[in-house]
């Protein structure tokens, strides 16, 4: 039994021994190191960050103003305009709009700006640009500079083997500008891991972090979404500061960090973040209120101080244009006025022509030194500017009042004129010194009682035209006083007109063409005795008299370089053809003037060597002046022939056959957007050939072929109840008038009066006693309109002194309307241009139906009967 047990034990040992051996070989004896408890992970215990609290209720209450905010887009700025939509809206609510600086002539661009905004530029500012901004700020301009650490430059590195990029987030090109104002943006971003708005980089600013300033008024908590810190110099103050748990990534140290700062006595504001201005971040906390404060800062009415250099942006309101001492308007004035109106409109101003200048309004006064009236002289004297014109220069009207010795046609020799000129004194006495009027343009800005008057004077019409041209170039920043070589001091500028031997003219030439004044040497010169009794007749034609030419004559003459010839024609009533044939080297221009030196007709249709002709010209008794010029002023030989003909080719013949109806419906409607085209067609198409051109369908008026206008007998320009917009249209229309055209202008807000105030018209009244216009109608008869119409308030400005006999009123505002008695319909005859214009300043279709047919018939009769 015992042996069996032993055998069994051996058996078992041998059976399990190998396993035991392996176990003890592989595994440690004793307990393995304590691994501790396996952790239990439950993500649900995580604290979820709080959502952004609703923004503080804030309603922006802006104060309306007007102006431009210049926004820099010329330095690779890392933002899009979409991002600024809300900010732009806050500025627009204050009446301000963005203008964009694209990198060309910052100083000029700043002239128009109330403030300059620079956001995240990736290119540095030049020294000239920095100087321009410093000058701007010194003049009270506001500067907002915004950095943002998320807007950095990425430089592409194109090596031989690789194309890679480098993010230049530590380079702040903005500092090239900010440093000039004691401010430096650090190449960092701020973070706060202790208390933030959802993310370490969203910095909450509250409590002591809100510095005392207008920007933080009623602001209790702001959040910046990624901000640079800003280092400040001694002249700057912190507007927003981070708390002690706000760190800078550049130093990795907390505390004492500024997120927004101002300098230059509060005229410069620097912000370390852009995002808070953008959607949706402007809704967080008090960000919206803070943005409103920034908008107030940029649009503050007490900000910018404007000077003469800032033309035309020193004006606050609509501007009155006054031609100094001018008693009569003309197409020449129209052209200048329209050009100025367009320029002013491009700058955001309305320019209205007025008969009398006043210091109570923003205004632009233009004219000649010799025509400065008493009030202007007084105003100039208040600026220590006086004139000496000795002997006095008489205007044509003044000369006519003088009794000339009978039989002397007042001719002077060139020598006498020269001697006379040498003894003349025409000086401007200014605080800058005395300067001759000849060759000098004067610009003076008078600022008083919050109003601005710019006075522009020159010696001659040419000189004035150049100065006006200079002003027009100033508006789009194409030039400056400095570039024009002007001497500028204290809102006074004296500018060269660059006209050699500029004459000091008596009065502004109001005909179409402007040229230098010269004296005519006529054939009577030989009869003059050369004494001091000779009277100088100044003729506004820069041409040398060649004597008289008679019907049937053909003369050959030699033009010297730079010379023009004038021939006198006096054949009584006749219809003539005038032809100039020039040699190959002459590009002739043929002009015909009447005895008052008004341009009758002009021909400049051929190139060098071609003929110019004026055919079928109807002459009245009196002197006519034929002027022959060479366009290139090289000189050469020409032949001038004057022959009588039976055929008049003037397109101003009385009968009307072809009517061109131009419907201008592209402007903004004042009412329901009506025009009178259908009614005109209904009334006219039976008797006349009527061509209808609708601007919204067929294109603008200026898209017409100019030659086409020669084929029409009457132009009806119908603006309905749309506000006419001045464009190149005007020029073509005036060209049409200059060629002696007939124009019926009708509409609530017709061309020529753009910018006038609106009034309500409910009735009209016939007036006057014109045989044609009131034929079959009764003067003082009133008609109630079928509706109330918004129309321009046309005052009497278009009927200037001396022009009364050219204007025939026939319709006025009725007794029930505002401005009873104000002109509503007038007919204008321009003898200089032989043009006829009827202005019916309400939509034709607004007239009572019974009146439409008879009045239209009368107007057509008037056109035909009074035709030149």
């Amino acid at each position, binding site marked *: 039994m015992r042996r069996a047990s032993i*055998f069994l034990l051996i058996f078992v040992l*041998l059976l399990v021994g190998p*396993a035991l051996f392996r176990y003890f070989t*592989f*595994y440690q004896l004793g307990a393995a190191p304590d691994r501790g408890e*396996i952790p239990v992970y439950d993500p649900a215990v*995580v604290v*979820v*960050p709080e959502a952004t609290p609703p923004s503080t209720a804030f309603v922006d209450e802006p104060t309306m103003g007007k102006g431009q905010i210049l926004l820099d887009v010329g330095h690779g700025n890392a933002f899009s305009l979409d991002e600024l939509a809300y900010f732009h809206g806050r500025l627009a609510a204050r009446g301000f709009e963005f203008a964009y600086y694209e990198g060309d002539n910052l100083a000029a661009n700043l002239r128009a700006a109330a403030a300059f905004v620079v956001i995240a530029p990736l290119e540095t500012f030049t020294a000239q640009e920095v100087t321009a901004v410093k000058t701007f700020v010194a003049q009270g301009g506001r500067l907002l500079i915004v950095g943002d650490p998320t807007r950095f430059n990425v430089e592409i590195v194109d090596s031989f083997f690789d194309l890679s990029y480098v993010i230049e987030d530590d380079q702040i090109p903005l500092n090239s500008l900010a440093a000039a104002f004691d401010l430096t943006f650090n190449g960092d971003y701020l973070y706060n891991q202790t208390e933030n708005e959802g*993310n370490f980089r969203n910095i909450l600013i509250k409590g002591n972090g809100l510095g005392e300033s207008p920007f933080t008024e009623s602001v209790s908590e702001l959040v910046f979404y990624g901000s640079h810190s800003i280092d400040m110099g001694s002249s700057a103050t912190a507007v927003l500061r981070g708390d002690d748990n706000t760190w800078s990534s550049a130093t990795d140290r907390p505390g004492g960090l500024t997120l927004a700062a101002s300098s230059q006595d509060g005229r410069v504001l620097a912000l370390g973040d852009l995002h808070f201005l953008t959607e949706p971040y402007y809704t967080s906390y008090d960000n919206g209120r803070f943005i409103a404060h920034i908008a107030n800062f940029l649009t503050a009415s007490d900000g910018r101080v404007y000077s003469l250099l800032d033309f035309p942006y020193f004006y606050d309101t609509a501007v009155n244009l006054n031609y100094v001492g001018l008693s009569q308007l003309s197409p020449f004035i129209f052209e200048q006025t329209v050009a100025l109106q367009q320029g002013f409109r491009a700058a955001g101003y309305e320019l209205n022509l007025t008969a009398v200048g006043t210091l109570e309004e923003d205004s632009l006064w233009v004219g000649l030194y010799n025509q400065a009236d008493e009030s202007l002289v007084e105003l100039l004297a208040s600026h220590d500017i006086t004139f000496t014109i000795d002997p006095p220069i008489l205007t044509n009207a003044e000369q006519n009042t003088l009794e000339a010795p009978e039989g002397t046609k007042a001719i002077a020799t060139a020598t006498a004129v020269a001697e006379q000129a040498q003894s003349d004194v025409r000086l401007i006495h200014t605080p800058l010194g005395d300067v001759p009027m000849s060759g000098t343009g004067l610009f003076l800005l008078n600022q008083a009682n919050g109003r601005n008057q710019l006075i522009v004077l020159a010696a001659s019409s040419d000189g004035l035209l150049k100065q006006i041209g200079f002003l027009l170039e100033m508006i789009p920043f194409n030039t400056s006083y400095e570039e024009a070589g002007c001497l500028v001091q204290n809102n006074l500028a004296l500018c060269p007109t660059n006209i050699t031997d500029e004459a000091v003219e008596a009065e502004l030439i109001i005909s179409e063409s402007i040229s230098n004044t010269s004296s005519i040497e006529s054939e009577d010169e030989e009869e003059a005795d050369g004494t001091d009794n000779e009277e100088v007749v100044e003729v506004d034609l820069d041409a040398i008299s060649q004597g008289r030419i008679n019907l049937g004559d053909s003369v050959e003459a030699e033009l010297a370089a730079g010379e023009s010839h004038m021939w006198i024609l006096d054949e009584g009533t006749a219809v003539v053809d005038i032809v100039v044939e020039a040699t190959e080297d002459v590009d002739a221009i043929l002009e015909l003037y009447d005895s008052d030196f008004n341009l009758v007709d002009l021909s400049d249709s051929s190139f060098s060597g071609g003929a110019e002709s004026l055919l079928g010209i109807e002459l009245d008794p009196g002197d006519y002046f034929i002027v022959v010029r060479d366009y290139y002023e090289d000189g050469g030989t020409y032949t001038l022939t004057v022959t009588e003909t039976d055929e008049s080719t003037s397109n101003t013949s009385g009968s009307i056959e072809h009517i061109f109806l131009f419907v201008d419906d592209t402007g903004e409607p004042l009412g329901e957007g009506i025009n009178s085209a259908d009614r005109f067609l209904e009334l006219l198409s039976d008797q006349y050939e009527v061509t209808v051109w609708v601007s919204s369908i067929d294109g603008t008026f200026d898209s017409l072929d100019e030659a086409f206008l020669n084929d029409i007998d009457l132009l009806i320009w119908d603006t309905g109840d749309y506000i006419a917009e001045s464009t190149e249209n005007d020029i073509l229309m005036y060209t049409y008038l200059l060629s002696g055209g007939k124009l019926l202008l009708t509409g609530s807000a017709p061309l020529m009066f753009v910018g006038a105030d609106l009034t309500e018209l409910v009735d009209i009244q016939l007036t006057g006693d014109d045989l044609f216009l009131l034929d079959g109608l009764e003067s003082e008869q009133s008609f109630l309109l079928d509706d109330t119409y918004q129309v321009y308030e046309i005052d009497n400005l278009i009927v200037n002194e001396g022009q009364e006999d050219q204007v025939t009123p026939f319709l006025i505002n009725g007794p029930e309307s505002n401005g009873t008695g104000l002109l509503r319909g007038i007919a204008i005859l321009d003898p200089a241009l032989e043009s006829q214009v009827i202005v019916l300043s309400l939509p034709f279709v607004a007239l009572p139906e019974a009146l439409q047919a008879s009045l239209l018939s009368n107007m057509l009769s008037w056109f035909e009967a009074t035709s030149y």
Partner: protein
Amino acid sequence: MVPERGLSDSPLRLILAFLLIILTPLAIGLYAAPRLIPKPQVGVIRLYYEIYDLSAAELKAQLAYARNDPAIKAVVIVINSPGGTANDSEELYLDILNTRQQMPIVSSIDFMAASGAYYIAAATDEIYAKPGSAIGSIGVITSLPDSVFIEEDVLTTGPYKAFGGTRDSFSRQAETLKEVFINAVAVGRGDRLTGSFEQLTRAEIYDGVTAQELGLIDGMISTQAAFDRAAELAGLNNYDIVELYPLTFLNEDETAATLYQPPSINLERLWAMPVDLAPGMYYRYLELSGQ
């Protein structure tokens, strides 16, 4: 007289008895011992490069293999990874915790265990690295959605159905996942974690020395030493090291698996910026600055 020899005294009987008592149990014991007590193994799982759906699936399969193979008594995860998708990192974190119920798991960081890779390491029993290893980047990176819009021909029943949410809500979600991440690290590391919340959520990359100071790792040892430590934690004296990848995916035997040569690390790939990263939340280290 010669006494009669009994059967028990016969040589044949002795031989039979020897066979029955000695050889048979010994043979049976020798045969059964390796099957009953196999030589223990330390399985090696390698987390190389990014964590994404495929790499996460491979790791999970290897962990499952380890759990199902009785010879595998411990696992060492060798890490060279910048992290990856948040979801896959969290999945692996939970799977490792689950596997730890059966065996110790040790992390051995070679070059990098950043962000999601460290998230995974935090689930293991112990983490070892080298002084020059790149460790940390505890945080979330994501891209914010563009501005929302509606389309004429696409109808949704909620304002953010087509976008997932507002920029602000994405920002909040990122912050929430940051909290999840740091909480997972705190759970995994327990009292060993000495760095503060603010310090760790700076999402910095640390070297091994600093990481040990902050309690992010348990020491700086070689990978072989990490195998030994895993074996020690598993109570092993004598063990084999086997690569789990060929065992799991290549159907190789253990001998072949022992001889398996893992791929070497391509550092350029390890540090490279991801290409065409899909929208989403990432526990991933991205070196945005510089080249």
